[in-house]
């Protein structure tokens, strides 16, 4: 009887059009749109690229040339300099081909049209020149014999930061939208879970009424429905991960099987939550769906589906919330697989998922068992 119930649960479940849409088609659509919109943003907007700069020399300045030459030796030089005359420089600035014009004369000055990071970096670069002049002037006033030592120091390349590598994973901040997309599909799981209770509560559906007066033990029917929901949700999670990784080419790191494990467990968590919520009250189906979707979407909002920095903001102010919010836990397990070489954070997130799933499922079963109806 268990397998009979399971078979019909699956057959009827996969025929629900809204299920197919929200759990299969919508994630594919949203993932594709994320890819289209965010595919180039990290490279175009976040990663530093040499700042195109026009240089107009109103008088000879050998030191400036020397500095620019030394800068250009680097892999990604600070400035991509084009020496030119003023008219051409203005034209380049107008056309947006350079971010600013540095005038090299007795002093350096800067002309810009916008006030973005490019220009702030140019401004800092120009300011450093003024600072060097001031340092030499201060030294000349105090101890002129040390001017040469100061000039030598100023002409040295300084690399004060000892950079400590953080990760071998993909640091593209926009990849997290795909972690959150997978978490969103998991958080649609409660809708699948709610269907179990609807199909088993006599006051909510004709099928529920029929099941309650059938000779099949409630435990068998309930477990078959739970198993069916887990299978349906897992199929959606597998489809979502497969699509994002193999079609959209999103890099989840080199531990893809574990990505599938995390996603499937996330989906099961979602179903269990829906099962628990559906069992614990006797609201109408519409009310249950409304409340459960509001909770799920709020959970996704907190994990950064609608606003990318949300998880970071919460990590800064209420870090414990990130460790228990279901959507964040699912997204974070994928994040940790990409960013960390060890498994401690991943395992802790998986354990959290298992605990939430176990608590919700157990509570749902306890509340549902021996439920009686005065009349059907």
């Amino acid at each position, binding site marked *: 009887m268990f397998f009979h119930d399971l078979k019909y649960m699956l057959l009827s479940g996969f025929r629900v*059009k809204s299920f197919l849409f929200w759990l299969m*088609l*919508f994630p594919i*659509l949203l993932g594709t*749109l*994320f890819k*289209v*919109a965010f*595919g*180039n943003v990290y490279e175009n907007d976040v990663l*530093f690229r040499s700042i195109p700069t026009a240089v107009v020399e109103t008088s000879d300045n050998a030191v400036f040339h020397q500095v620019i030459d030394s800068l250009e030796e680097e892999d*990604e030089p*600070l400035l991509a300099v084009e020496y030119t005359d003023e008219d051409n420089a203005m034209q380049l*600035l*107008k056309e947006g081909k350079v971010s600013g014009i540095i005038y090299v004369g007795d*002093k*350096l*000055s*800067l*002309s*810009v*049209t916008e*006030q*973005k990071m490019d*220009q*702030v*970096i140019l*401004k*800092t670069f*120009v*300011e*450093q020149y003024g*600072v*060097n002049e*001031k*340092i030499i002037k*201060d*030294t000349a006033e105090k*101890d002129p014999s040390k001017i040469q*030592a100061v000039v030598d*120091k*100023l002409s040295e390349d*300084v690399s*004060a*930061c*000892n950079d*400590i590598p*953080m990760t071998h994973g993909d*640091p593209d*901040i926009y990849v*997290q939208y795909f972690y959150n997309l997978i978490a969103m599909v998991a958080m649609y799981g409660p809708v699948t879970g709610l269907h179990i209770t609807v199909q088993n509560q006599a006051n909510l559906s004709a099928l529920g009424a029929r099941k309650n007066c059938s000779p099949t033990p409630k435990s068998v029917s309930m477990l078959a429905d739970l198993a069916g929901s887990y299978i349906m949700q897992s199929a959606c999670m597998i489809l979502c991960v497969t699509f994002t990784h193999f079609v959209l080419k999103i890099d989840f790191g080199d531990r893809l099987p574990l990505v599938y494990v995390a996603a499937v467990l996330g989906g099961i968590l979602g179903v269990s939550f829906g099962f628990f919520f559906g069992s614990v009250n006797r609201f109408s189906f519409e009310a249950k769906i409304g409340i459960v979707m509001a909770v799920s979407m709020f959970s996704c909002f907190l994990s950064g589906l609608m606003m990318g*920095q949300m*998880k*970071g*903001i919460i*990590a*800064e102010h209420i*870090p414990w919330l*990130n460790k228990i919010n279901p959507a964040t836990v699912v997204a974070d397990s994928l*994040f940790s697989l990409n960013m960390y070489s060890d498994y401690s954070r991943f395992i802790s997130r998986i354990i959290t998922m298992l605990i939430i799933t176990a608590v919700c499922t157990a509570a749902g079963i306890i509340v549902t068992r021996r439920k009686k109806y005065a009349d059907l």
Partner: protein
Amino acid sequence: MQIFKVFMKVLKKRIRYAMLYVGIFLGIAIPMSLNSSNSGSTKEMFVKESKSKIGICIFDEDDTPESREFADYLAEKYTIKELKNDEEVVMDSLFYMSVDRVISINKGFADRLAKGETEGIIDSRHMHESYNSMLLEQDINSYFSSVSAYIAGGEDALTASQSAKEALTADADVKVISFTDEGNADYPRDFAEYYRYMAYILIAAVIGTLCPVLMAMNNKEIRYRTNCSSLDSSSYTKQVLLGSAVFVIGVWLIFVIAGMILYGGVYKGRAWLAVLNSFIYTLVAGSITVFLSAFVNNMDIINFINQAVSLGMSFMCGVFVEQELLGAGVLSAARFMPAFWYIKANMLLDGTEAFDSTKLMQYMLIEAAFAVVMALLTIVVSKARYNSTAPQKRTAPAVNNG
């Protein structure tokens, strides 16, 4: 006006859906707009502001006057964030860019500085090779270059740190040139974002609300019954279109009036052109809705199409992500969508692109052309679908209103 009244009755049942969209949009747009207007948008402020927004965290393990001088120098220029010295917290903060660099000043910092050693004197962690991270590195190197120069000039490390801090406060001679005319003062970029996001909400709210109403009106049995009534079919169409127009323009007016509140009074200058642009786009939204309802009669499919059209156009045409950040291929495809031209017109008006009235007119006409094409397609589909002869064959003789 029987049909119009019925239309309004059906619409009344769906109006909550539209109000939900309107409420959520205004609930998000108003705080965002107020926040951006408080952040100060004058050009001079921006240069300073963009520095202070850069977040940095400092763990000072040396805790000497020299290390405190360095920390003070950074604190004066950037936003200092307090973080727990825990790998997970640091990793999250760096990844989500709430801080751009985490600096550790190790023990022995002051001693090394006194000797003039600056190479790798501080430990630094960063995640992204970003502009912010680059600026911080450049600034930190400038600081230590200046300190070591003062030390070479005979000063002790602490005095050298103080002198360097003072020297680095000097401002560069920066001239801000504007090649575009200043006409966008009446339509600032902060406010233009409100009209940019309107491209999404108009489509989503109009399709999501109006389509089910039109579907109910177009229900095959009801439509055939209406067709064989004494009502003239052109009168029917006019009344349905009038009902649709009342709803669509009503939603548009709500957004325009709410925009006025954010704007701080009656629109001026180019802001009126933005209103006109949004009106044309509203007509496009209405025409898409009427077209969809002419051949779709399933709510699940309508929901899917609504999400696909509203989100798809918004992601591809520069509503959610600025057009300059989108790939060339995406923009080429987006040219076939009305939202692309709406955003292009909005960019002309807010000064992102040099204002050109001919181009503006051209963009608005392209938008309007989409509405015309949709209207023509609707007529073709409706003729084929509802004025077919199938029912007449069964129930002949029927009055042919088509």
